[in-house]
């Protein structure tokens, strides 16, 4: 039996969420210990007896038994979650009550509750994402640091602060409280959006695409839209956007493992099932008066997805969607993407003019694809030398080997012109 890739860390997220529900949020460290024990047990046993038919159920059952041990041993020494009080005080055996706490739908709700709890209003967005990766996706401090190009010490500090805020938030976020739900949902959307983007345009030094991060974001987003109270138009729009972008992931890297620009992608490799799911979710998202950035981004991705070849793209529609996005959530990156769409629609010179008019253009200076976009448009205008300069600027900012190879190829594409004049 083959283990599903990343099974352990995803199970870690499920188990920690459930055990925290049982032990109480102030005993998060205890929950993490129990999960660690369950994995140790799995390692010891599976090495000799092989992977069980249902590894997830095996792990959860092992964690449950460990949890029962802990509850029996520490029922007098610790305060556990209030809902356990009655259970712990009763003379009845613990097991049947605890059994209920491990029912499949309860585990789902536990994860949802933990997701909302990670989006505590007192935490900055970056801390929310880190906390969610750590608790719900089973990422270690080192793995988060690698994904976010940060140091171990910085992430450790951020997480320990965040955990403190979490531990103090008693009672833990309650998904049955409609008002809490509505208030915190936008923050949760934002966090999942950041998580997805980190995988899609990641700054990770190992890889330009972290498919596993995208999948985690989609898995958590699915938990949201499967819950009646969280299945809002915005949730559907966010999930639609993720599906429609993820559909392109198989083509984002070409056969040689190099980054492939949207225009050059082999569209036969786009995932039709994800496109269909994205379109279904996009339709569901259109059920109210609300229009947010996720609707617009999903709509843009849907226009791309419906074009069998790049020249079939309805650029006018894309430009107009970017216009809308600029009114809802303006940012230099959105403005840059809008300029690129204008270049596709009205020619590279128009694109360059639009880039020149981006209000806070200096904020893009550290972003490699800003320089790459300038290079691309200059190249299309036939100005090889400035194009090369821009690509060199982008190359100096590249964050991983894939981005570097991509940009080196673009520099080579500029070789037609005055290459021999350039001496370094």
């Amino acid at each position: 039996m083959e283990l599903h890739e990343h099974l352990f860390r995803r199970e870690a997220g499920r188990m920690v969420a459930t055990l925290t529900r049982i032990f109480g949020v102030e005993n998060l460290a205890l929950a993490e210990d129990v999960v660690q024990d369950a994995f140790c047990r799995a390692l010891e046993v599976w090495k000799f007896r092989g992977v069980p038919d249902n590894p997830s159920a095996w792990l959860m059952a092992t964690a449950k038994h460990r949890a029962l041990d802990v509850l029996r041993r520490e029922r007098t020494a610790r305060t556990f979650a209030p809902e356990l009080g009655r259970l712990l005080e009763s003379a009845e055996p613990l097991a049947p009550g605890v059994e209920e706490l491990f029912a499949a739908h309860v585990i789902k709700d536990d994860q949802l509750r933990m997701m909302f709890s990670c989006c505590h209003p007192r935490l900055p967005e970056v801390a929310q994402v880190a906390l969610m990766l750590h608790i719900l996706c089973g990422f270690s401090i080192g793995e988060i640091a690698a994904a976010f190009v940060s140091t171990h010490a910085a992430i450790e500090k951020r997480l320990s602060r965040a955990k403190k805020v979490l531990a103090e938030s008693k009672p833990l976020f309650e998904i049955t409280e409609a008002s809490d739900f509505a208030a915190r949902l936008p923050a949760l959307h934002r966090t999942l959006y950041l998580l997805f983007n980190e995988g899609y345009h990641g700054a990770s030094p190992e890889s330009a695409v972290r498919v596993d991060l995208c999948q985690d974001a989609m898995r958590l987003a699915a938990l949201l839209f499967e819950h009646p109270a969280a299945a809002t138009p915005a949730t559907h729009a966010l999930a639609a956007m993720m599906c429609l972008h993820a559909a392109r992931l198989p083509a984002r890297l070409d056969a040689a493992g190099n980054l492939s620009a949207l225009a050059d992608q082999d569209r036969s490799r786009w995932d039709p099932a994800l496109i269909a799911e994205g379109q279904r979710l996009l339709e569901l998202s259109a059920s109210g008066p609300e229009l947010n950035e996720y609707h617009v981004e999903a709509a843009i991705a849907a226009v791309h997805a419906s074009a069998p070849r790049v020249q079939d793209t309805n650029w006018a529609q894309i430009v107009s969607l970017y216009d809308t996005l600029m009114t809802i959530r303006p940012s230099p990156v959105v403005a840059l993407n809008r300029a690129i769409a204008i270049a596709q629609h009205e020619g590279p010179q128009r694109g360059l003019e639009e880039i020149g008019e981006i209000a806070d253009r200096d904020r893009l200076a550290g972003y490699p694809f800003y320089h790459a976009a300038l290079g691309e448009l200059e190249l299309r205008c036939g100005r090889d030398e400035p194009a090369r300069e821009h690509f060199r600027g982008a190359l100096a900012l590249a964050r991983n080997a894939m981005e570097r190879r991509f940009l080196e190829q673009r520099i080579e594409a500029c070789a037609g012109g005055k290459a021999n004049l350039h001496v370094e």
Partner: protein
Amino acid sequence: MSEFVFLFRSTDAASRAAMGSPEQMQKSMQTWMTWMQQLADKGHIKDRGNPLERTGKLVTGKQRTVTDGPYAEAKDIVGGYTLIEAKDLAQAVELSLGCPIFEGGGVVEVRPVLKTTM
């Protein structure tokens, strides 16, 4: 072919320290499974064997004194065993070299099963 027992020894602390994140644990599990599978494919596994609990009792002396296993102080304890088939001790040792236990500071004890000559 002769039979050998691989006794896998490690300290509890060392094996826990080598666990790391869930992702790393899954990787180390997969490394172990791949190693076992390779031995099995070449027909060297007589019996996959069993893991052993790290707790137990020690019964010692003429008095049959029963104590909890003094495992905490033990340098390393047997965490499991596997029954191997190999040409000779040298080959059995060779087969043990790929064991991932060494990455975590563990030990493989290779012991020939005593043959009786009848």
